[in-house]
């Protein structure tokens, strides 16, 4: 009887340790552009869309743009799909992904647009992911 409980408790402890490890591995920290350049893992970077930098390439099926963080650092971003919605009007973009060479490859982008569905002054994030 006691053995069964011990096995069960042992299993739960082991499972929770694995879950804790998964949490540390999968958390995607918020970093500045400077930190993103140095990082080797998946991170998220928030910044303003640099005016006129947005390009959508329907043949390569890529969205390319440059973001500028609060420190004024600029980062070129490639999102390997054509983003849905209105990235052009985004006031703020969160890019989630990893550096590949000099370019930040964003598997997911969240962008904040003046929202239509929640009243005038409110804003919402839209999402585009690979």
């Amino acid at each position, binding site marked *: *009887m006691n053995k069964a409980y011990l096995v069960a408790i042992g299993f739960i402890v082991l499972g929770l340790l694995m879950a804790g490890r998964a949490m540390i591995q999968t958390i995607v920290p918020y970093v500045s552009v400077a930190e993103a350049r140095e990082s080797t893992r998946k991170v998220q970077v*928030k910044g303003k869309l640099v005016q006129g930098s947005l390009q959508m390439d329907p043949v390569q099926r890529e969205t390319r743009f440059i973001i500028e963080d609060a420190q004024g650092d600029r980062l070129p971003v490639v999102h390997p799909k054509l983003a849905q919605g209105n990235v052009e009007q985004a006031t703020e973009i969160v890019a989630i992904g990893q550096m590949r060479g000099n370019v930040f490859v964003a598997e997911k982008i969240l962008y904040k647009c003046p929202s239509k569905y929640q009243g005038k002054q409110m804003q919402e994030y839209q999402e585009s992911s690979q």
Partner: protein
Amino acid sequence: MNAAEWGRLIIYLGAAGAIAATVLFALAAKQERWLLWARRAYALAVFSAVAAFGILISLCMRSDFRVVYVANFSSSDLPWYYKLSSAWAGQEGSFLLWAFWTALLGLLLIRRLRRYEPLTMAVYSSILAFLMAILTKQSPFLLYPPSEVPPEGMGLNPLLQNYWMAIHPPAIFIGFASLAIPFSIAVAALLRKDWDGWAQIAMPFVLLCWVTLGAGLILGGYWAYVTLGWGGFWGWDPVENSSLVPWLVITGLMHGLVVQRHRGGLHRSNLLLALLGAPLFFYGTYMTRSGALAESSVHAFDALAKGALGLVVAMLLTYTVGGLGLWLFRLRSIPAKQTAEGVLSRDLAFSLGIIALVVIAGLTLIGASMPIISYLIARQSSAVDISYYHIANAPFAYVMLLLLGLVPFLSWRKVDNADVFIQRISAPWYATLFIGLVVAFASYFLRLPVAVGVFFLMLLATFTILSNAILVWRLAKRNPMSMGGYLTHVGVGLVLLGAAASAFYEQKAEAVLTNGMTAQMFGFKVSYAGMTHPDEEMGKDNAVRLRFESLKGDKSFEARPVYYFDTHNPMQPRRVAEPHIYKHALYDMYIAIGSDGGGVIERLQDPGKTLPIRRGETKKMGEYTIHFKNFQIQGAMGSDDMSIGAVLDVEYKGKKTELVPVAVFGRGGKPAKLPGGGEVAIFADEINANERQVILHFFGMPGQTTMPDHVIVPVEVKLKPLINLVWLGTILMMLGGGIAMRRRFAEILQEQQEPVAEPVATGRKPKARTKPAPGVTGGH
């Protein structure tokens, strides 16, 4: 006074009624003479909630744009069923829907409570009072000042214009509302120090909660699958998680109550689980409505008004602290009886299963709360990657599936002989092993991808399906009312098997199509066949027509993934894309424009031919003779929606027609169709007002060597094998839950008709509880 003003007043009335009911029911617990007045106050609250909801629906149906809520979420061109669903599309409306169901469920509850009525209803009414108070702060009945009433509403978000989305919120909100029932009964039980009676009353309501919340989750998943173009039905989104977590806890509670009924144990944990369901949902409400998650979820609502958010926080704290505090205070007097008598017993399997469910709920909750937790620690909210949920939950999901497979062959008492047990279990066990070997060999020879974790999950799911199906088969003839649980477990196995197979063995093909080009995908020749609404290509309801013809030539169909610009708000036109799903018994073909429903259809750059022309001039262009008559201006000068049209008389092969190409400031424009093919367009930045000159652009004229319909369409097709198992599984789960719910309602009805309704504490007679599959004690 107009209807909206009545609505506001009625909300206040309802809040007053619910507060009065709370006080009066509490008084009635001491002195019965208050009971009648308490019920009257509750009736007032019910009347108010129903009337307020009715008024909101009628305002939405009548497109009364004097009301801010209606103008924000509806428009007059919507069909009636979307006008109806705009009543719960927004923040305020969904709170009112929640209050509406809470009030109505109370009527069902109050009739089954008997001696539990005063205390339970006091707690329950207080929850309704909170909801009504939130609605006074965040009212759906706010009016515009008369001078600012918009002529037209903003319309319903096109993603919500889907019939699944019209029924999903009403269903899931019954579930959310019903979470208050086990909570209220558990509080009453703790106050009454009655450790068994409550379980009996709560059981059917816990099942009601499980079925409605489950159905809501499933409908939401199906909506995501057919509309959102995620390519999946579950995305571990904060809004999904905030419904999943209480549902898992309620699942645990449901099983705990079965153990308590049959073996007389788990009193402490059952009360705890009953007290956790509602606060967990309040927490989810706080997370998704406070704006705290605005940076990590697409679905999270915008921030509530400050007063309303304060009340949500107050509600969360009151019921979390109150419930857990009371439980801790009474903990020592709650009986703690050992139930499990042996390793091979149903008791132990249930206990472990409940632990696995609660751990999965806890890990999911922590993952979903990460943005808040990391904000508190590091002042930057970071979410976890979706893979966290899979990695962290997997070991517990394996254990749960294994237990689900073993349970049908376990008895409530210890199995004396392990050999007998092994003999019973051998059929599904060997069948699973056989299937596993076949899949393993097939994977090797067909070079299918292999992952140990996924393979293991599929193997365990198969085991669960087989062993529960055997029992369902046996019970179907003997005692169909008791097969609910096993049927549900078959469903759980099917859902997980289908989810694992469709995600892991998914195949993807992409192609960029244009007119006259074909691509090969999954044994089909695919070609672009134009738009369904070529004249208003980007107008509402437009879809892309894609011909699919099998290479063998025996099958063909036309896929029509939806693709248009929603221009309801001219300030923010937005692309709307929905996948087309081709259904086959063994797989779905998920056909989308661009990847994951993302892409854009681009017009090829066609330089075309240009012709500057002044007002009053007549010029020739190819076979056309063009006379520029006048400008046509719409909208206020300098505003964003100002548009300028050039009125042209065009003569082609002796026939005269008037054409008006239009340029809209900031947004391109609308070309006019030329007789004989092609089109003529003007652009705002080329209009010279002083010279009264425009530049006409001719595209695709007869004789010009461009393709007549020069668009490029990125197409993505995903083949999802065995996805139908997921839908079959969800149907079986709901069917099983429904059967169990009917059984438990029949049970309390019967027991309440028995003259002696007061059960003796833990010493309840175990009647006919030694069979491996307990029969119904009721009259079935």
